């Protein structure tokens, strides 16, 4: 008999691998990426390319030359971080700012914690928050969509959330602000009025998320928990004072809520392991985001909310476990 392998059971293996899961996420991001390229044009392609290439390149260089453990390089995971980073930035971002964001995401948030699977904070969001604080002007320089699909009066403008914050400060009511700027919450379902690439189309994001659910890459609990919490808080505040607090639909489709709830908060490494832990984590994100939107000085709080709840994941993991067989 020729040589055969001897090893303990199991002797078979499911098809899914880390790489196949990461590539599923890339596929799921495609609808939103295509829509953002259509609306923002070459500028968006540049941001995507710089983010993807620098994330993958930096991870390789850091693993190989700084950590001297080339096996820690995971190209597919770095690619996902790069694409998510790009989708969190305005299409007008200068290339050096994107590259700096990649350095923060990969270098600080991911590799300094030990690489894939070890990071406490979501790398792309860490980078976005770093850039938001360091480069407030560039990070809020939103161009109204002016891409391959032409859009008549393309000028630079603020996002709906930014406009609202400014308007409310000057004493206008929500209805006045919305009508003077010609917004209608339903238009954002197809395309947002202005914002970072990942915020432009709720429909495209949901399409991608549906793909992840069908492929069983993610479970719906974290996302549902975030969206329901946001909807519940918005319903209560808007119900009490519609002039100063935006409503459910507006809060669900504007800003980074969908990108965050579908693709960022569901990151395996930085979210809780158990279903109920995920629900608690999602409620936390929903509450923080709405507090920042309603009462904070920033117009949007999705990134902060996710980062803050990332810190709680180790504690949540301790408190929530799977239901065990035969143990009440």
């Amino acid at each position: 008999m020729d040589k055969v392998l001897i090893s303990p059971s199991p002797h078979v293996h499911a098809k899914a691998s880390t790489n196949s899961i990461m590539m599923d996420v890339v596929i799921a991001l495609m609808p939103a990426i295509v829509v953002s390229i259509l609306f923002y044009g070459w500028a968006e392609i540049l941001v995507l390319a710089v983010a993807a290439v620098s994330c993958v390149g930096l991870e390789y260089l850091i693993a190989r030359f700084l950590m001297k453990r080339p096996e820690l390089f995971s190209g597919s995971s770095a690619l996902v971080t790069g694409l998510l980073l790009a989708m969190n930035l305005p299409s007008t971002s200068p290339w050096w700012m994107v590259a700096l964001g990649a350095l923060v995401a990969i270098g600080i948030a991911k590799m300094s914690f030990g690489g894939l699977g070890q990071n406490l904070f979501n790398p792309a969001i860490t980078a976005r928050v770093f850039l938001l604080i360091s480069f407030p002007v560039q990070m809020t320089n939103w161009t109204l969509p002016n891409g391959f699909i032409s859009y008549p009066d393309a000028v630079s403008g603020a996002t709906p959330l930014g406009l609202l914050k400014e308007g409310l400060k000057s004493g206008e009511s929500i209805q006045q602000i919305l009508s003077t700027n010609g917004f209608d919450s339903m238009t954002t379902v197809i395309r947002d009025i202005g914002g970072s690439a990942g915020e432009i189309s709720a429909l495209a994001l949901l399409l991608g998320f549906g793909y992840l659910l069908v492929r069983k890459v993610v479970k719906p609990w974290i996302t549902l928990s975030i969206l329901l919490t946001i909807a519940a808080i918005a319903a209560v505040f808007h119900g009490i004072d519609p002039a100063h607090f935006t409503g459910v639909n507006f809060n669900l489709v504007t800003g980074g809520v969908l990108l965050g709830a579908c693709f960022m908060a569901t990151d395996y490494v930085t979210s809780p392991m158990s279903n109920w832990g995920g629900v608690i984590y999602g409620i936390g994100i929903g509450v923080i985001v709405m507090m920042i939107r309603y009462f904070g000085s920033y117009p949007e709080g999705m990134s902060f909310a996710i980062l803050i709840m990332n810190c709680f994941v180790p504690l949540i993991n301790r408190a929530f476990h799977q239901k065990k067989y035969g143990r009440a």
Partner: protein
Amino acid sequence: MAKLTFSIGGIHPADCKLSRGCKIETLPLPPKVYVSMFQHLGAQAKPIVEVGDSVKAGQIIAEPGGFISAYVHSPVSGTVKSIGLRKDLAGFNVMHVEIDVEGDEWAEGIDLSPELVTAIPEDRDFILDRIKMCGVVGLGGATFPTHVKLNPPPGKKADCLILNGAECEPYLTSDFRILLERTDEIVVGAAIMKKVLGDCPCVIGIEENKPEAIAAVRASLARLGYPGIRVEVLRKRYPQGGEKQLIDAVMHRQVKSGGLPIDVGAVVQNVATSLAVYEAVQKNKPLVTNVLTVTGDCLPVDRMHNYLFRIGMPLSWIAEQAGGVPEGAVKIISGGPMMGKAVANFDAATVKGSSSILYLGEGTRRRQETPCIRCGRCADACPMGLEPFLLKKLYQYGDPAGLEQNAAQDCIECGCCQYSCPAGVPLLDNIRMAKAQVMGIIRARNAKK
């Protein structure tokens, strides 16, 4: 009617029942058999024959070595050539009785006729004695002595006898074939065990991917007319045939950690055990034969077989009857691909519980291990609700208290975690060692009390 299934975890591997169409064939006799003294759970059996003795098929050649142990019979007629250590399939030295085969003469009092005997003996002790004297052990994998399991300690009562026809391991088809070809005998066996257990209800659980077997058993039940036995269709899901999972699926009860099935009123027996019980009680025929599947993903379908074999036939000899080891076999497994053992010694003898010779090709190679991405698939897959990623870490950090607190000892070693892991982490390898460590601590603590 709704299909039953267990409530926690589980996976859906491709079932690969490639040999389902192969009728059971009886193997010819080999020149020699090697009968292991350790083919049941518990104490090793003690040989009572000597070198040079001539034995008949079905004659007792070894006695139980303790309360949990079993008789061993000669599977053939011939002369005892030697008694001594021989390597089992994992390469461990185990006492074997080597017998040179001469003719095929059976011991007296054994009914070899094919006629079905449906009248069940009245005397419970007679039935239990027959089962014990015929060396019947559980053929679902654990080979626990059947007479012990069918005789609950005082104060414990069976509410339900579950006959396990799930055969949830991919590739294996021996239970499926006996359900089709030995249906009536299995049903009579069930009626016998039901009677021993105080006439509790009996459920025969069969997975949905075996509709022919479900129909055959239902027809047999209608024909034979034993009351209180019914078939339940189980969903195709691994490990549906795990004892604890099957009890959960059928009775909606869960066995407490460290407890026994009888604590929740359950007795689970495999369908192959039911056949052995029938043969023992109705025919006085000891357990010296069983059915095994020769299959695999690198074996052409026309070389697959379901064989009726005599215990003690070497695996390699059976493989030769089926045309030898196929090209491209990377691993040879005895048992299913999820829980079976990789064969280290192909000349090892078959035992009562042998269920297959499985050849797996390149796909069985382990993947390169990459970092855990905390996807949680192992925890979702675990049918005991454990967190394999955590147990592996605790084991590597050397934290036995943490392991016990997180129930490492509850692991049933089904392999769902390692099967599901996208990073190729050898979770079960670590948890097996963790479990052994925790069990040792628990035993030491109980001994002190």
